[in-house]
Structures are given as C-alpha cells and as structure tokens.
C-alpha cells in the first residue's frame, strides 16, 4: 500500500524509453520513501513483458493483457488505472509526458480528484510546512517544472490529495537497470472486472507512421542555417543538433536558394517570423531581411567564421568557428551534461 506506481507505455512489444526512465526515477523515490515500486502495463500479447520491467527494481508488476487494450484508447486504460489506484492507493504515480500519458493522466487525476503536474524536469522528496494552517507535511513529492514559456521554474506540491501525479518527458530522466536478477512479482488484472463495454466508444480505425510537418513558427528552439553552412552535408549536422536538443531547423533565404533547405523552413522577411526562446544561427551573416524574422528571439547563439558578422549584434553568445567543428561539439557536450 501507498507505494510508487509507474504507468508503462508499450509500442510494438517494447516498453517505451520514457517509461523505463520513470521506473528508474520511481525506484530511487521508492528507496527514499522506503516503500515499494510498482508498475502497470496495459496492452495486448504481453507474455514475457515482465523481463523488460522488473530489472528496473519493480517489486510488483500489474499486467492487463487483452486484445481490446491495444492500441491505446483513453477510456479502457483510464478505467483500469482509476480502479487499480482506488484499490492500491499509491502515494505517487508517474506517467510519460507523451500523447498517451498526457491524455490518460488528466483523466485519471480528475476521476480521483488528485493533483497532476505536467512535464516535470525534476522530482524529489521533501517536507512542507503550511504556515497558514499550521500543518506539517513529511515526504511530499516536489514536482519541479518550467512554466510560463520557460520563464519561471515552479515547485508544485499536492499536500492533501493522493496519488501525487506527475508526467515527465522522454529523455529528461536517466535510464538505469537496478539488477537483472531483481525479484518482483507479477499480478494479472482481470480485465473484464475493470473495463465496461461502453469504454470502447472510441475506436482506432487507422494508424500509420508519418513524419510531422515542419512547424518552425511555434518551435521553442530553432537551429537555423545560412549560406555559410557551406554544403548540404554540413546542413545535415543542423538536423542532428536539432534532433538532440528538441529544436526545429530553419534557414536563411540564401541557404534555401542554394538548395540546402526547403522553402517552408525559410525565416525572414519573405519567409516565416519566429520568436523562439533560443535561436542558434549557423553560418548566417545577418542581413536585415533575415534578422527581421528572428530579432525577437529571447536568446541568440551565433556561430560564424567571420567574427564581424552583423548577426553578432543580435547574439547573446558569439562562437567564431566552423559549423563542421562546432556543432558536433555542441551535441557531444549536450549529451554529456544531460545523462
């Protein structure tokens, strides 16, 4: 009772990375709280799935295995989680901040009247004193997240309602197996006792993988390249960096004209205007036609071989160097500092 629970997402027989990362975090929270870590997996054809989950230090794994439960739809998964949480009364419940976790989490929290904090970047255990009502709380979950477009970082707590629920994005927490020989037990959920026929009101009629459309306008981070990038191969490095740090790739008119990028990525007077919190300008000289489309960026990093490039007037960081050298280093050191 009152354990830490993690909802595990499954895609084509594999537990999602974000869920494994949450199991790792859940294990360490359970250690701090001296309680058990439990996991729930809901889907179809789950035979042997425990081998992927229990080594992360899971003491109890709940499995709901039925062909009606994959692919994910909201209501059956909600019904199972809500009933299970009512019975097991977890103190903490974690989910991935994915299209599944952010669909399921709020629904569950509303049904249980428990608080939910989305997209946490850090989760730690701590105490709280409510001075107004003279109440002391021990061992609460501090749910730490950026808010307000990243302008503040807030620590959120749920003093009175349980479970304390949080979602976390993929890649934020590290993933670490506790022990291949970890001993946990498996409990099978009798699906028909948890799910009602009317839960199947929404049906998935078609599903396919498809690359998302370019959306530089609303991107929080833009990595943009200019003519100075020099080649299509070098431009690919921009995509690599964007992939790693969660950015979109943009381009100056000169880069589009040179064939390095498609027109839909063009930033500037004749392209799109962007206002990201971070703009990384690579090999862009900084003609006014271009800067008109990015000058409202909150922070600008300019990478250029010319230390007098006009773009540097807009920059918070100026790196004088070659794209082919600088970008791989940025990727390397980003990875070193996040995992």
């Amino acid at each position, binding site marked *: 009772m009152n354990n830490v629970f993690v909802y595990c997402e499954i895609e084509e027989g594999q537990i999602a990375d974000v869920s494994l990362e949450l199991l790792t975090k859940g294990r360490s929270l359970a250690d701090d709280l001296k309680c058990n870590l439990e996991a729930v997996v809901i889907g179809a054809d789950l035979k042997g799935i425990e081998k992927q989950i229990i080594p992360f230090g899971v003491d109890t794994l709940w499995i709901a295995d039925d062909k009606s439960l994959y692919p994910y739809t909201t209501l059956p998964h909600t019904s199972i989680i809500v009933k299970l949480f009512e019975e097991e009364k977890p103190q903490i419940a974690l989910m991935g901040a994915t299209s599944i976790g952010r*669909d399921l989490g709020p629904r569950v929290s509303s049904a249980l009247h428990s608080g939910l904090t989305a997209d946490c970047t850090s989760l730690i255990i701590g105490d709280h004193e409510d001075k107004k009502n003279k109440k002391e709380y021990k061992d609460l979950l501090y749910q730490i997240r950026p808010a307000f477009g990243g302008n503040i970082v807030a620590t959120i707590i749920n003093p009175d309602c349980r479970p304390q629920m949080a979602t976390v994005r993929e890649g934020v927490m590290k993933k670490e197996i506790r022990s291949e020989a970890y001993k946990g037990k498996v409990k099978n959920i009798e699906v028909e006792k948890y799910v009602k026929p009317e839960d199947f009101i929404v049906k998935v009629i078609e599903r396919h993988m498809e690359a998302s459309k370019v959306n530089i306008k609303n991107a929080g981070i833009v990595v943009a390249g200019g003519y100075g990038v020099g080649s299509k191969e070098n431009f690919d490095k921009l995509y690599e960096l964007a992939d790693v740090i969660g950015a979109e790739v943009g381009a100056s008119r000169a880069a589009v004209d040179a064939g390095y990028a498609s027109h839909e990525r063009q930033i500037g007077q004749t392209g799109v205007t962007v206002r990201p919190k971070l703009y990384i300008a690579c090999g862009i000289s900084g003609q006014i036609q271009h800067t008109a489309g990015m000058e409202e960026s909150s922070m600008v990093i300019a990478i250029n071989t010319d230390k007098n490039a006009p773009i540097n007037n807009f920059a918070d960081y100026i790196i004088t160097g070659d794209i082919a050298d600088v970008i791989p280093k940025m990727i390397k050191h980003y990875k070193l500092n996040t995992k």
Partner: protein
Amino acid sequence: MKGLKIVVLAKQVPDTRNVGKDAMKADGTVNRAVLPAIFNPEDLNALEQALRLKDKYPGTEITLLTMGPGRAAEIIREGLYRGADNGILLSDRAFAGSDTLATSYALSCTLKKMGKIDIIIAGRQAIDGDTAQVGPQVAEKLALPQITYAEDVISAENGKIVVKRRIERGVETVEGTLPMVVTVNASAPECRPRNAKFVMKYKHARAVSEMQNADEDYILLHNNRPYLNIGEWSVNDIETQAEELGLTGSPTKVKAIENVVFQAKEAKVLEPSDADMDELMKELIANHTIG
C-alpha cells in the same frame, strides 16, 4: 442534416514572450494584469476546426466559452470576427487561483448549464501553463469521451465523429460517437483571419463588465442590437460546490518559484573549444533554455 452545436473552449493567455519581474504574485500565481494578453494559439487552431465544421454543416452554431477576468471578452470578440456565433465569459473572483482541476470543474458546470452540445473543442494546451489537462479533465467531469491531439476533424455526422490525431511517431484516425470532447494540436491548420463583415457587425460587442462606464447612446445601441451583448456568467449562474472552486478546489499548490527571466547583457564570446562548448551547454541546461 441539421447543424451541430459546438462549444469552443478558449483562454486568454499572457504572452509568455514578454515576461517581466512583476509577473508573479507573492502567492505564486500569475499576475495577469501586467502582461500583454493574447488568444491562446492552439485555441485558435480549435476555433478553425469548429469553423470548418460550420462550413460543412450549415446551421451549425459555435459558442466560444472562456473563463477569465472582464478583459477576456476580447478573445470572444476575436472569435466573433472570425465566424463564431456567440460567446460566454465566465468571470468571478471565486475562480481565482484555480489549478487545472478547479478550472475544469468550473467549465464543466458551465457546460452542463448550456444544454445539449455535440462537440466541445479546445486547444490542446495553453502557452502559460503547457499542461494539456483542462480538455481531458472537462471530458471526465462531464462523463464524455475525449479525442486529444487532433489535427483534423474529418467528419461529424449521424452521431459519429471521425478525427485524425497526431501521435509521437505518426498519425491515427479514430472514430467515436457524439457528444465528444476534442483537443486540437498546433499542427492543425491555422485559424482563418478576421472577416471584415463580422468585424463591422461585432466591433461593439461587449460583456456586462465592459459596459460599466458606457454612455446612454452605447447602452441604447446594445439594447437595439441584442447580438452585441456578450453573455457573462458568474458563479451564481452555474451550480457549483464552493469547496471545489478556486484555490480551495485545487489539489496542486505552488511551493516555490524561481525566476529565470533572461537579462539583457553583453554577448559572451566563446572559442569553438571543448571547454567552452561544455560551459555553454551547462549554462543553457542550468537556466532551462534547453533540456
């Protein structure tokens, strides 16, 4: 076939691009009064989906519902200019300090009072909180099914709705029954611009709290043209349990706030060396710019 009754949930949000020091109050809630306010971007994507359904199914009626202070009526006007039929502003001190759950509760009580609705459609999330919780929580409180991350409401006829939704690595087409709650992604088509005809018609549309200093002529204009009166409801117009509202009804509390507003400063000049790149990444991660 007859038209649909659609409610678009929209929020007026502080433009998080322009955040100053006085943006937060001592209790950790947002001081909206000092920030420029805009129509939440994904709610505009939601409005566009509603307008497309109206184009497709004549007789469809679109109501824009927003909760906020008196000035939030601005986004109702913005909706009317683009083709919404009417709007309701839910405004009361009793809602102050609401987290997503208390907000969803207040909205769901309002929606219950609005009678039969076929589709409740909202943006996936608002840029001030980025939680994506209000849509699903409203659905749960009304015991309605939900379709989130929608990119295209393909059809809504004969009691059925078909929606294309964007998931991490692809797209999914789902079918459900009406009534339904739908939340719309930024990847959905942008909202159409204002229509000059509607701007002429509705430019004097006002909510009650905006009419307090109106002169007699203006009041007369509103009496003669009832469509200029934007509905404004308070907590007394809906049935609620007081303990579910505002700060009291909010399970989550803000314990601490750390400001990371970027200061204008001299540019830092870095060498393309491992040491400098490591320093840069550490700084960007520490101030939550990336990661």
